[in-house]
């Protein structure tokens, strides 16, 4: 890595003692010698193992659940169903007033995605829990499922999630989060060229080294200590308190040493049910995802569809940009309404466009709920935006990097969401990229600046 101090030399300083120094990480020796303790290193006498019975269907009604054979299985201590969970229907963002509650801890009457948790089995060994889980009999009536976002949005499509009532998240602005700036249709009318293109991504796994999980120990004082690899301690504690209808003062969460998160450990999934298990059995409980669960059960990055329509002039100016984004939330909200909304605040990208129209939708389908992942709401949007930029440049016969210089935002430029640009540095990044990649651009672009009234 090289630090290029010639850029922004008038505002950056080198007068500090500790900041800016490449000090070795104090936790590295522990990590590389195996001495660092992760949550799964906790092992308590009498600890039970929790395994989930999961839905084999994408969408089905549960006619009945028979746990009698599983309960008789050697080593099984407790079998939990929806009726055991005090506040079974929840949603994580309720803490910041983003509802409705739309997801069950354990399925109640219905499953909405293949892999959904239906019954929790607690046993002396992992193997006994697994074997007993296989003995739980669930009678399903399979329902029509919908996997394609466009199909899901059509009238008459099977309703994925009754707590929403329609297959999209309802914002206060309606079916989508909107941004309206200038007059996009007038921009298209005035443009020399109009280009509309569609981009698509697929769900992506976080693939952390350490899978999601927790180890819970009941304490002598009626409290529960939960050793967890969550990315958000109090967020998880407070949601657990709601789900279990248990005062937060009864809960003690310990974590903070995590083998990779990437957004995959922001959901609140393993802790509430494990703590409930510990409460009902009076024994320590561990619930740790297998690699298969981590890959197919834990939330992935949402698949997204992004449609971009641009009006561009022969001289390189983008005069209108319309973006319609669709986030595939799967069966439940988790963090997807937030992600779709983040996209609305991000488009039209780091460019100054006078006429902008943005609609972002959060769509429900019968697949593994998606949620947070590194950059979600923006990452796939940037893929779409920047491929579109390349296409536009070639359409008007302009160098792709020079085309970006013409449109790059600078300090003081008004963004589509009506915030003036501050602290811009796109131009300087492109200048340095041109230098380091030996990508020739005209001298006038190399003389530009992100500063207000910069050349």
């Amino acid at each position, binding site marked *: 890595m090289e630090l290029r101090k010639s850029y*922004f030399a008038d505002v*950056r300083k080198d007068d500090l003692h500790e900041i800016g120094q490449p000090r070795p990480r104090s936790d590295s020796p522990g990590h590389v010698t195996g001495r660092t303790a992760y949550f799964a290193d906790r092992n308590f006498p009498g600890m039970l193992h929790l395994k989930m019975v999961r839905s084999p269907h994408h969408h089905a009604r549960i006619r009945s659940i028979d746990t009698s054979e599983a309960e008789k299985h050697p080593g099984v201590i407790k079998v939990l169903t929806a009726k055991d969970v005090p506040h079974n229907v929840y949603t994580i963002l309720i803490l910041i007033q983003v509802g409705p509650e739309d997801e069950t801890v354990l399925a109640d009457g219905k499953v909405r995605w293949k892999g959904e948790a239906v019954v929790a089995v607690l046993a002396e060994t992992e193997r006994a829990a697994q074997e007993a889980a296989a003995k739980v009999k669930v009678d399903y009536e399979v329902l029509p499922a919908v996997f394609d976002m466009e199909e899901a949005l059509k009238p008459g499509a099977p309703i994925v999630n009754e707590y929403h009532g329609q297959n999209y998240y309802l914002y206060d602005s309606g079916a989508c989060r909107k941004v309206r700036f200038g007059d996009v249709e007038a921009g298209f009318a005035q443009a020399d060229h109009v280009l509309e293109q569609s981009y698509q991504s*697929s769900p992506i796994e976080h693939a952390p080294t350490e899978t999601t999980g927790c180890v819970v120990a009941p304490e002598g004082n009626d409290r529960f200590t939960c050793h967890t690899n969550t990315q958000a301690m109090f967020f998880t504690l407070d949601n657990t308190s709601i789900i279990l209808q248990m005062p937060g003062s009864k809960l003690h969460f*310990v974590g903070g040493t995590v083998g990779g998160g990437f957004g995959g450990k922001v959901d609140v999934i393993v802790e509430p049910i494990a703590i409930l298990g510990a409460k009902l059995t009076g024994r320590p409980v561990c619930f740790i995802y297998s690699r298969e669960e981590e890959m197919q059960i834990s939330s992935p990055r949402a698949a997204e569809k992004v449609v971009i329509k641009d009006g561009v002039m022969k001289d390189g100016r983008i005069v209108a940009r319309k973006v319609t984004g669709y986030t595939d939330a799967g069966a439940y909200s988790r963090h997807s309404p937030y992600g779709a909304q983040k996209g609305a605040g991000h488009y039209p990208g780091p460019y100054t466009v006078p006429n902008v129209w943005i609609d972002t939708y959060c769509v429900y389908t019968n697949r593994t709920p998606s949620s947070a992942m590194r950059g979600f709401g*923006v990452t796939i949007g940037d893929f779409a935006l920047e491929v579109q930029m390349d296409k536009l440049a070639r359409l008007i016969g302009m160098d792709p990097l020079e085309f970006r210089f013409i449109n790059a935002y600078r300090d003081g430029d008004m963004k589509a969401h009506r915030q003036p640009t501050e602290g811009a540095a796109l131009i300087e990044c492109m200048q340095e990229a041109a230098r380091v990649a030996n990508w020739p651009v005209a001298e006038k672009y190399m003389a530009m600046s992100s500063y207000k009234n910069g050349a």
Partner: protein
Amino acid sequence: MAIRRGRGVAAINYPTGMNLGGDPTQALVHSTPTGNFMVTLSSVDLGQGMKQIMAQICAETIGVPTDRVVVDTADTDTGPHCMGTFASRGTHRAGNAVIQAAREARQVMLEVAAEELEVNASDLETDGQGNILVKGAPQKSISIFDVALSAHFKRGRSISGRGMFLIPRSYPEKETGAMKPSTCYAHACTVAEVEVDDETGEVTVLTVKNVFEIGRALNPKMVEQQLVGGSWMGISHALYETTEPYYPNRDHGGTDFNQYLMPGPGDLAETEIIVLERPSADGPYGAKGPGEMCANPQMPAVANAVFDAVGVRIDTLPITPERILRALKAQAN
């Protein structure tokens, strides 16, 4: 049939912190009897090195070497609230909270030192090595070790501080979408160079040159590891990864690392990282959040390079050999 070479560029920005704000983080700082400093948080270190960065921020603010700071974090019985480690917020939000707490603790420390030295606290400065000196008269000094002892056993003072950082939540206006998603943005521009085998559709990323503007590299070695890792993840997202290879079809999802495709060490491109610093107005020592954005520009840069190489657009991620071959076939017809 041939191996064809191409290159592509992409430029991006990325907001620091939870979208629309409203995501608080608190910190507490106190000294031990011998002048070491504890930072107490409930923030989570995901492996990116947050504890080390918080130690350096606290050390800088108080004016001691980093090895005199210990970070105790992620215990809800002791640590004050943190919204969590996500949205490129850890360094920015917790860092600001630690600065505020450390400033308050530093002030008490200087007041105690002033009493010991019989001067005004405003006339004192730290040397960064563990001593407090009188400005302009450095021969008159006291060690922080002695100041802490005095505070604890003689003067009955608690060298401690409380810190809190919160960006008020912004609510989007319904019809126009007027809102404040973030207070600062990191930037990047990436140039990727690829080879595409037009017989097999296989893409080899030869080089990736990333320029990142991150406000301030608080620890250059640590941010380098994050930026390099992010760049690899971007390539992996571009070419390999998905849990549903035929999305929206639900079949063929990988369940382990044999089935879920990711690049191995041999698939990783020669990676160059260049960092620019435009300090952010509200960042801890100017820092922005680079954690997420560093994985974003590689995807479009690789896609644009593939087009440059073989003249087909793959607008669906991941850019698999199958998709390239189908596009080449469609182009030939």
